[in-house]
Structures are given as structure tokens and as C-alpha cells.
């Protein structure tokens, strides 16, 4: 998936020459089979035939020496460059954008889901009726999981056009780029431009046959491309990737409104244009948000429900009713699997270096070794873009290092430093590492591979035995721990507060005796209460203290009885608590208003006498009785809001419900974040939190069921 296209002049401001060269090419406008209208100077010329022709006709800049490079066939500007690594500044990500499904590293079923959606959107599926529901496709997933690449590839394969919205801010200055776009001094807000774009894109499709100067996303080349592919004229897709500033509440409302309007107006049309929204999940740590959340929640659930969400997320982009509604299909992309990624990288390397060797006989080419590819795949965490970037960087770096007679170990270290992403330790492993409490000399688990056993042995050698404790402290003596807390802390994908919640949810399975449990929970309690009232007064050593405390308290070795790591119930509880508080407020306001109307005295005075805890603690019984009475008498009079059962009704059951399990693939971390976000939104979000964890095509299935039912009704 290439990065958002930017004008070439912005992207590489330093190297003016190649850019100029490219821009001359732009003006001549090569015909391309690429059916998208987005102006992307980097990918627009990957069409070999056209560029090859063009390369012959265009004038090479006189300063350049002719030195055949492997990409000369593809890229006209490459000819005569001194060193393609310096002067061919195009990124491999763009050069080797997947052209066929086989090249796409995304799981086949995901691609199939997306393709099916497009088929249904254009043809209405088998029953022909799905078309009106395939209005918005939301593609979510971590960055570099191939979302955009999949859409582009399908556009090429299925022959539809992608009309992409691009925010014009900052681009007005690059005159070369939007020369066709008449920026008349009148100020037009970015959002109204967006609205115009949306309206035109969905209603006035015929306009696109002439140069569409109105839509900022159009490049001057689009028409030419268009005329080459007349068959695709009937099919359009609006792609929203570069969204307006949704974080601004007003713009967000406007955006939601225009999406609703879009659905309303296009569901009547015979051949509506579908929208594809691509959202990269923001992977950020749940740091202070978590604190705010718990603080506010503790203070009664009022404050934190008001918190404005400042994370860009599919829930902010799409209003909740739409997201749950029939018109929106969400397909969540997973991080790219290591095997697929490795295959893709190897193929890319093959292509790159075979081309290179065929076109010239350079000797100082260093093909990345298998180890380097492995390291890249491992460190990229399923982000293929970062992996390719790392690969390119590596080939540059390794070339230089060869000159300096330093290759091999050095480059892997460089790779480590460059490609290592912040959250490289999956939540599952983090919790496992702490709770299994491995210490020096522990026997390896039966499933461990020889490599793991060796690694443990090596580690044990390095560990120093702690000094003996005096007799009165004997009970605190432990063997040296294999857990390196500092690196754990550095790699932890979650902050200490969330970490403590996971420990809390799971520690009891790992304990044998009550005393061990007591140790762990006492540490949790202590760590939680150390520090002040406010989040910024919190103890800065919480993570370390908690980890050390837990390791100290757990038995050693921890018995293995196939413990399962569960997701904390805490969020579920917060959600329910919030709903219950809302019910309490409802009841209180009902009491106030009801009094005020009916009675002769101004009784509203009395209702304010009821504090919220009094309502929950004392009113419950009588509310229930009154409701029973009311039901018996079939009273029509509106009595207490029925939601009161949320706080007044508590039935004791002994069934052991088990929480959601945390999978090894580490996806649950994102679920967690989603959950956080959902909570912060003040939204009770059930269905979506399961998102990416539940395998392929899940989101689509949900939509599919709904639609099938609807179809039956229509017959």
C-alpha cells in the first residue's frame, strides 16, 4: 500500500532534478491502464509500455550520464542517472505496488470479501437486491495491511474507476500540481469543498467525461486515462482516505450529515456510486486516556462520558447508527501474516534484482540475505509498507557499509534500530511472561523447541544468583528471575494501568495457595492506591513495582494447567455501570418532573433531596413493588422509567461466565483499544469490539445475514 500520494515536488524537495524530469513527463500525459483518477506521479508511470514509449520521446536532461539501470524500462527518469539509489528516489513501495492478486500479500479471503462487496455494489449480488445496501464499505486495519492496495488492485481487475477525495489544504501552493484547478481567491472551507466533491461524484457522473476541474482530486491526466478505458465509465467508486478534519466536532457532524444524505439520495438511484472509506486503526497506547477514564468513572460516570474523543477511528468517521445499519459494511484487515509477507518480500527482491542484473552488470549489488528478510518480517509486525521500506533502506545501507568493509552483523543491528516498532511485544506474551514467572533453572516446557531451550540456557548463564538472605527473611528468597523488567516495560504495548487490569483478571489461575493470591492482589491494591488523587500524581514506578511484586508473589515454578489468559471484565463493568448511572439520572429527573406537574405543591423541591446513592441504595425495593402493582393494574399512567432495573435489580446466580480470551496473535490489543475508545465515546458498543479478532469475513457475514432477511421480506 503506497503512502498517500503527494505532489512530487513536496515529497522530495531536495532533489529537484528528477522531479523536473518527471513533471515534464506529466505534461505529456502517458496513457495508462491504471483506471484511478488520483494523480500519483509515482505509480502513474509504472505502466510499462506507455512509459517505455514515452521514455524514448522525452528529452533526457543533458547533464545526466547514461548508465543503464534496471528500472530504465519502467521509468523514464531513470535513464542516465548516476546512481539509482540516490537519484531514483522513488520508494520500492510505489515501484512494486502489487498488480495482481497473487502479488498482494493480503489474505485471499479478505480480498474475496472486498471483491464480493464490489460485485454486489455494482451488480447487486445473486438476488440483485443487495445493490442498494452496498453503499459504504469501511476498510479498517492497522497501517500497512494492504487496504488501499487491495482497492486499487480490484479497481484495475474489475475495471472501475476510483474517484478519490484529497484535501486540498497546502496543495494550493504547489502550482505545478493543480494548475488545472482554478483556485480563485474566494475562500471556500475545506469541508464545503468536500461536500461539493461528494455531491458531484454521486449525482453528476456525466460531468466526469469532460475534464472535471471542479473536483480537486482530479488530475490533468485523468481524462486521458479515462478516454482510454471507456468501458469502465459506468462504474465509479468514491474513495475517502484523506478525510476532512473529523476531530473537529462541527466538521464531524457535517461529515456524518453528508454521509447520511449520500445514503439517502443514492439509495433511490438505479446505479448509485458506492463509497469506500479506508481507515488505518490508530495504534496508540492507552496512556492518560485510561487514567482519565478511570478517574471520571470513579467520580460517578458523568465526567468521562462527556469526554470528546480525539482518536481517529472508524467510530468517529461513521456515526454509530450508520455503522450498525444496513448500508455500511465493515471489513477489517488483519496485519499481514509473516508467511505472506515473507513471500511478498522475496518476490519483490527477485524482481528488483533480476531486473537490475539483466539491464546492467553491476558488481556491488548486495542482495539482502535471508536472515535480513527474516529480521525485517519479524520486526515489521505485519506492516508490509514498513517492511518494504526497511528492505529498501537496508539495500542502501548495506551497499554503503560494504564500501566501509563492514557488513553482516552491523547491518542487522542497523535494521533492528530502524525497523523496530514501538509495540513489538504482543499483549499475550507480555502477560504470559509475567504470570509464568520463569526463574533460573526452571525446566523448559515440553512444547519448547530446541532453539528456545538453548536460548533459555544462555540466559541462565548470564543471570547472576541473588545473594543469600538472612534467616529472618528466608521466606522472601527466590531464584533469579528470567524476566527482564526493563525490556518488558520498554516493549509493553499497554500502559501500567491496563497491564494491572490484565494481571488482576488472570493471576488467580496461576496461584496455588491463598497466600500467593494475597501477595499479588495486595500489590495490585497498593500500586493502585500509591500516588495522589490525580493522574499526574500517580506513582511513576507502577509498572516495575507491580511486575516485581507479582513475580515475587507467584509460586515458582508456576504450575502448568493450560491456563487461558482472559480479557479484563473491567471494561464491561464500566460500561454497565455507566448505563446504570444513566438510569439513576433518568429516575431522578422523572421524579422531579413528575412531581412538578401533578401535585398542588411545588414538589420538585423534594426530588432534589434524593442524592444518587440514596436512589440506588434505598429506592430499589419500592420501585420494584410499584412496578409490579402497576403491571397488575395495567396502569396506563407512566411510572418510573423502566430502565431502573439496571440498578435496582440484582439476581444472584452461580453460573461462571468466562470472559473473552486473549489470543496469541495479539489482535486483542486492538480490541482493547477499540473498547477503550468505545467507552470513551460513551457508546455501548457490543458488536464491533470483536472486529479483527474473529477471522476473515466476519463483518461481512453480519451484514449478509441482515440483508438476507430483508430480501425474504421483500418477496
Amino acid at each position, binding site marked *: 500500500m503506497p503512502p498517500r500520494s503527494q505532489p512530487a515536488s513536496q515529497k522530495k524537495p531536495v532533489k529537484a532534478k528528477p522531479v523536473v524530469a518527471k513533471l515534464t513527463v506529466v505534461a505529456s500525459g502517458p496513457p495508462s491502464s491504471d483506471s484511478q483518477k488520483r494523480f500519483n506521479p509515482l505509480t502513474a508511470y509504472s505502466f510499462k509500455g506507455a512509459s517505455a514509449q514515452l521514455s524514448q520521446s522525452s528529452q533526457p536532461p543533458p547533464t545526466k550520464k547514461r548508465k543503464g539501470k534496471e528500472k530504465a524500462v519502467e521509468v523514464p527518469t531513470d535513464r542516465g542517472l548516476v546512481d539509482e539509489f540516490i537519484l531514483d528516489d522513488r520508494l520500492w513501495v510505489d515501484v512494486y505496488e502489487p498488480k495482481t492478486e497473487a502479488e498482494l500479500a493480503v489474505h485471499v479471503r479478505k480480498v474475496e470479501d472486498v471483491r464480493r462487496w464490489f460485485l454486489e455494489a455494482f451488480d447487486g449480488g445473486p438476488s440483485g437486491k443487495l445493490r442498494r445496501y452496498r453503499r459504504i464499505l469501511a476498510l479498517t486495519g492497522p497501517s500497512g495491511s494492504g487496504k488501499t492496495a487491495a482497492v486499487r488492485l480490484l479497481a484495475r481487475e474489475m475495471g472501475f474507476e476510483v474517484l478519490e477525495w484529497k484535501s486540498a489544504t497546502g496543495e494550493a501552493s504547489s502550482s505545478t500540481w493543480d494548475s488545472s484547478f482554478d483556485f480563485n481567491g474566494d475562500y471556500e472551507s475545506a469541508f464545503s469543498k468536500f461536500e461539493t466533491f461528494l455531491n458531484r461524484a454521486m449525482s453528476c457522473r456525466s460531468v466526469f467525461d469532460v475534464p472535471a476541474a471542479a473536483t480537486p482530486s482530479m488530475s490533468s491526466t485523468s481524462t486521458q486515462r479515462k478516454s482510454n478505458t471507456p468501458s469502465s465509465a459506468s462504474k465509479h467508486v468514491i474513495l475517502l482516505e484523506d478525510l476532512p478534519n473529523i476531530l473537529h466536532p462541527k466538521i464531524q457532524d457535517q461529515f456524518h450529515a453528508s454521509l447520511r444524505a449520500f445514503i439517502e439520495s443514492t439509495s433511490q438511484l438505479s446505479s448509485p456510486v458506492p463509497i469506500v472509506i479506508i481507515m488505518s486503526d490508530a495504534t496508540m497506547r492507552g496512556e492518560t486516556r485510561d487514567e482519565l477514564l478511570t*478517574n471520571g468513572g470513579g467520580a460517578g460516570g458523568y465526567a468521562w462520558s462527556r469526554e470528546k474523543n480525539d482518536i481517529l477511528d472508524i467510530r468517529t468517521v461513521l456515526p454509530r447508527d450508520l455503522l450498525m445499519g444496513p448500508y455500511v459494511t465493515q471489513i477489517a484487515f488483519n496485519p499481514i501474516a509473516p508467511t505472506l509477507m515473507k513471500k511478498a518480500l522475496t518476490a519483490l527482491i527477485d524482481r528488483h534484482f533480476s531486473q537490475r542484473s539483466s539491464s546492467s552488470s553491476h558488481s556491488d549489488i548486495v542482495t539482502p540475505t535471508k536472515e535480513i528478510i527474516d529480521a525485517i518480517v519479524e520486526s515489521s509486525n505485519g506492516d508490509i509498507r514498513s517492511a518494504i521500506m526497511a528492505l529498501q533502506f537496508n539495500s542502501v545501507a548495506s551497499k554503503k557499509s560494504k564500501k566501509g568493509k563492514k557488513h553482516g552483523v552491523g547491518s542487522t543491528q542497523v535494521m533492528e534500530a530502524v525497523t523496530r516498532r514501538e509495540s513489538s511485544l504482543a499483549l499475550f506474551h507480555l502477560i504470559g511472561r509475567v504470570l509464568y514467572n520463569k526463574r533460573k533453572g526452571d525446566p523448559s516446557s515440553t512444547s519448547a523447541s530446541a532453539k528456545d531451550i538453548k536460548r533459555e540456557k544462555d540466559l541462565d548463564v548470564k543471570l547472576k544468583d541473588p545473594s543469600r538472605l538472612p534467616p529472618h527473611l528466608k521466606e522472601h528468597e527466590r531464584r533469579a528471575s528470567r524476566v527482564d523488567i526493563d525490556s518488558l516495560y520498554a516493549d509493553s504495548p499497554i500502559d501500567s494501568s491496563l497491564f494491572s487490569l490484565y494481571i488482576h483478571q488472570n493471576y488467580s489461575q496461576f496461584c496455588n495457595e491463598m497466600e500467593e493470591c494475597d501477595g499479588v492482589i495486595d500489590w495490585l491494591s497498593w500500586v493502585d492506591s500509591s500516588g495522589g488523587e490525580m493522574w499526574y500524581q500517580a506513582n511513576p514506578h507502577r509498572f516495575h513495582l507491580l511486575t516485581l511484586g507479582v513475580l515475587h508473589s507467584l509460586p515458582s515454578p508456576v504450575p502448568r494447567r493450560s491456563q487461558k489468559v482472559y480479557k479484563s471484565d473491567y471494561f464491561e463493568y464500566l460500561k454497565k455501570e455507566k448505563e446504570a448511572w444513566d438510569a439513576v439520572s433518568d429516575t431522578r429527573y422523572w421524579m422531579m418532573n413528575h412531581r412538578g406537574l401533578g401535585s398542588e405543591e411545588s414538589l420538585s423541591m*423534594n426530588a432534589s*433531596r434524593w442524592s444518587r446513592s440514596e436512589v440506588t441504595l*434505598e429506592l*430499589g425495593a*419500592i420501585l420494584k413493588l410499584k412496578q409490579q402493582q402497576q403491571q397488575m393494574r395495567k396502569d396506563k399512567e407512566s411510572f418510573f422509567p423502566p430502565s431502573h432495573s439496571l440498578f435496582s435489580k440484582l439476581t444472584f446466580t452461580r453460573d461462571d461466565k468466562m470472559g473473552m480470551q486473549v489470543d496469541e496473535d495479539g489482535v486483542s490489543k486492538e480490541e482493547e483499544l477499540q473498547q477503550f475508545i468505545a467507552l470513551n465515546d460513551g457508546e455501548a458498543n457490543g458488536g464491533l469490539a470483536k472486529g479483527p479478532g474473529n477471522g476473515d469475513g466476519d463483518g461481512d457475514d453480519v451484514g449478509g445475514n441482515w440483508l438476507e432477511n430483508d430480501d425474504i421480506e421483500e418477496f
Partner: protein
Amino acid sequence: MSLWVDKYRPKNLQELHYHHALSKRLKSLASGDFPHILFYGPSGAGKKTRIACTLREIYGPGAEKLKIDQRIFLSPSRRKLEINLTQSNYHIEITPSEAGNYDRVVIQEILKEIAQTQQVDLNAKQRFKIVVINEADSLSRDAQAALRRTMEKYMSNMRIILCANSTSRLIAPIKSRCLLVRVAAPNADEMAAVLNSVAGRENFQLPEEAARQIVEDSNGNMRKALLVMEALKMQSPNLTGPLTIAKPDWETYCHKVADLIVSEQSPSRIMEVRNKFYELLSHCIPPTVILKTVAERVVERVDESLKADIMHWAAFYETRMRIGNKKIYHLEAWVVKVMSLYKQFFYGFDMSSFD
């Protein structure tokens, strides 16, 4: 059809059934120089009723014409806080716990606003306005500190009435600036008198036995007593024969949790108890109440020698709970402590004998 508690709530100081000396004092204060007052006393003793009566005494019936306003405050981090304010022409009531962490902002804003406006009603008996702060013991330190200065500064046209369950969580400067008025819980006779008078106004006879039972059950909480009476009346209209006072769901639930703790002590039982706690918490039962109810029940069911320890740890973890964020940890920590104590006792293994 409002609840009896609300319907027969005394409207002025003369109507109050008990603490007549206190009523008399408030009456004389109302006509003369009125200070800042801090009302404190247990839940259901009639603090808020007394405050309302005092307001009426000061301003006359006009103080009963209330309206509810929703006001929006901006926190320092530009977050919007929506707070509901109950106010009349003469006074304003706020419950700062609704503002969560930002109670300081809310208090300051409101006090400043009140202090800046003069009493517009020329017929008003007093020149000042009154700010009633409910649940003052849940005010954060910051807010209390903010209050302290304002109380002196705007004395000329504003008085503050604080209402709290206990003074222990209020800072000393505030206490020293207020007239402390303790509203004690009514005794059994006073409660019975109130119950009978309400029964009289509802036109039924309350049997003595029923009254005794209600008073006993409600433990000095007048509101609870009246609610129970109303519930009983609904269940069995003539109020004779054996009466079973239905406990609220959460109380029965807490008792069952206590039984779980006593009946088995194992890591898996901890998980079970934890889920029960989550259930209670998600029904908005305050964690302190949960801890107290469960602890009292556990203490009933264990050996004499354990009781002191169990209560000690309950107090210990209750303190931590007040400071900490995640209540569940501390509740659970207490449970685990109790379980391990109980287990040690059960196996006759007493650590203290080694000392």
C-alpha cells in the same frame, strides 16, 4: 402518586417532628445574623429537609419555587461539563460529585457568579443569597481549598450551607468557618411518632408491632423507614400478621457473596467473588457500602478470634479504596485476605503462636 417520604416531608421548621431545640435555634438564626452552616449527621436523619425548612424560614414560600437548570462549565482542559442546578430566586443547590474531578471549577464558577449578583427581590427578608452544597464530604481537596477563601470574601452577599454525612473529610478551615449543626438520627420513639403521623394522614392505622419492626429495620434512617412502611403497605394492606421486610436486592446479594467467601477458599472462588463484585459495582452500589455490608455478614459467620482481624483489614482496604482508582482491586484484596485468614484458622495454623 409520589412517595410518602416526599409527600409528607415537613415544609417548615414548625412541622418538624423531632430535634425541636435545633429547630428553634435555626428559626432564630434565620431572622437574625445568619452564618455559614454545615449540617452533618447520618443518612436519613433529615438534614436536607431541615435545610429546606430553614430556607423557607428565611425567604418565605418563594424559596420553594424551584427550577432546574442545566449549566455548562468548561474545565481547564476545555472539556464541557454539564451540571444540573436546582435554584430558586434566593438560593442555588449544587451536588459537586456530579462534576467528578472538576468540582473545583464548578464551585468557583457558581460562587463567583452568585457573589457578583445582588439580591434583586426588594421584598426579600435577607440581602444575601444562599448556596447549598450537597454531599460536601465528597468535595475534593482542591474544591474545599477554593471554597475556603470565597467563604470569607463574599460574606456580604452570600451564605453557604454545606450538607455532609460526616465532618471527617472536610478540611479544618472550612469547619472553622461554619456553624456546625449536627442532625442526629431520630430515636425509636421519634421515628414511631413520624410513622404514625404519616399513617394518619394516609388514613390507616399502623399496628404497634409493625411500627416497632420497621423502626428496628431502618436503623435510624427516617427515609428508609418511610419507604419500608410504604412498601409493606403495598404488600399487605392491613399490615397485620407476620411481616417480612423485603431487603433490597443488593443487600441480599452482598450477603450471598459473604457466604461464598466463608464456604470455600480457593483461587477459583476468588474469580467467582470477583464477578459478583463486578455485578454489584455495575449496579451503582458504592464500593464502601459493598465492603461494609459483606464484611458485617462475614463477621457474623466466623469464629470470634477472627472478627477483629477481618474488620481491621476491611478498614485498611477501605482507606486504600478511597485513594485508589480501581475499587475492585481493594475489594478483592480484602476478600483474599479474609480467605487466607480463614483458611489458616481452619487448619489450626496460627502464625502468632510462633512469636
